[in-house]
């Protein structure tokens, strides 16, 4: 019986099925909010208020012709989308969606999650590289270059929360915050959100797939089911990153009256709306501006946050 319960938790709620529904829902929320910020209407006719639009896109792409160009590295080209979906799925299973983690929780799983995010960037790189298209290659190289810039401030901003709470277990961090960390570490939160935009390749930092410069970046040669999987992986990554931000900075599922899972999803939606607001507010940076900006401003800010964390900790004890 216990096994059945665990399997239901992993595969249905709050596991893979629930995460997939959240992924499609978040893409819709993101597109609709983005359209409203631009004074447009956004998806309207696919289901009520266009809520089925991401599902329509997914099914349509699954039903299209699957082309493998002649000069690509077939093995990597065909398998990269599968890994791209598997990695965020696996990472999301460590989110404390309903107060306890879906799969398991151990000391140090934050490090594992950040490593998995790094691994996704490597998948992006080899997917672009295996396409052997010049636009894909440029996009892949840009993805790696961008990754050198945003990953470090992101890690340090997560580390300063871990230092404050005194644990590297995501569930423990999200459950043991006296007040939500966004109030105690606002600089860290801002750094995390900016790095998250870069991680998700969203607009100020959509340099690896800049459509006005390099067609579609590393995605250029992908079509049909493979593109459907890659787009789905992006949505899952949005779920995962907003979940990570929620668990680390917004105290996870804790809140009055409503059950933890509702609070967790509401806070994730707040992060998604924040992300689409940033997306509609800015234009794209050049790659050199992005890298030097991250090294000049984001890393010093995140280190400042790490130092301030210690002061806040000592100060609170003194009070």
């Amino acid at each position, binding site marked *: 019986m216990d096994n059945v319960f665990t399997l239901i938790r992993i595969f249905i709620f709050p596991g893979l099925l629930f995460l997939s529904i959240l992924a499609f829902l978040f893409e819709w929320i993101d597109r609709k909010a983005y359209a409203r910020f631009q004074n447009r209407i956004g998806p309207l006719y696919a289901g009520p208020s266009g809520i089925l639009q991401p599902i329509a896109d997914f099914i349509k792409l699954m039903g299209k*012709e699957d082309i493998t160009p002649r000069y690509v590295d077939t093995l990597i080209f065909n398998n990269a989308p599968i890994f791209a979906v598997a990695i965020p799925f696996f990472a999301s299973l460590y989110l404390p969606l309903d107060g306890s983690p879906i799969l398991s929780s151990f000391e140090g799983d934050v490090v594992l999650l950040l490593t998995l995010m790094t691994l996704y960037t490597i998948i992006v790189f080899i997917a672009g590289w295996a396409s052997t298209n010049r636009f894909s290659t440029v996009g892949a190289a840009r993805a790696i270059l961008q990754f050198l810039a945003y990953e470090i401030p992101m890690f340090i901003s997560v580390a300063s929360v871990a230092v404050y709470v005194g644990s590297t277990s995501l569930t423990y961090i999200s459950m043991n915050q006296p007040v939500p960390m966004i109030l105690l570490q606002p600089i860290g939160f801002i750094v995390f959100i900016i790095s998250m935009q870069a991680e998700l390749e969203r607009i100020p930092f959509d340099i690896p797939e800049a459509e006005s410069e390099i067609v579609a970046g590393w995605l250029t040669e992908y079509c049909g089911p493979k593109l459907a999987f890659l787009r789905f992986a992006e949505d899952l990554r949005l779920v995962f990153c907003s979940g990570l931000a929620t668990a680390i900075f917004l105290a996870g599922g804790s809140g009055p009256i409503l059950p933890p899972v509702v609070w967790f999803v509401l806070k994730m939606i707040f992060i998604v709306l924040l992300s689409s607001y940033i997306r509609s507010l800015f234009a794209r940076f050049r790659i050199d501006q992005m890298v030097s900006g991250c090294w000049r401003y984001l890393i010093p800010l995140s280190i400042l946050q790490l130092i301030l964390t210690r002061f806040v900790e000592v100060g609170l004890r003194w009070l």
Partner: protein
Amino acid sequence: MPSILAWSRIRSPWILYMCTGACNACDIEVLAALAPKYDVERFGILLKGSPRHADVLIVTGAVSRQVAPRLKRIYEQMPDPKFVIAAGTCATSGGVYWGCYNVLGGIDKVIPVTMYVPGCPVRPEAVIDAVAKLIAKLKSG
């Protein structure tokens, strides 16, 4: 099952847009159709950069001899099922450039065309109407 697939195709036609030597009037009007005032994302229409991602190819301008093989290659790079909309008088027949030494004529000389939109230049409403009629055609099978 095929009905779900048909529904999804109707609800998300992604557009690739190509200029084969137009005078840029049609291009501006087609881009105006994609801009916030007409907001074609209501119908699930997105503008895509890569032919591998697109379902509908919108072509403007008479086909010159130089661009003809490229138009054909772009069409062949698109995955099935794919549709072509010829936007503007030049794209449908060659327009004022008909009979020029370097002009082949309309784009149906090179690739099969699903929908013709006349007009010099086309109105953005006409382009949206063409996509809506394409969707209606898909619906009826």
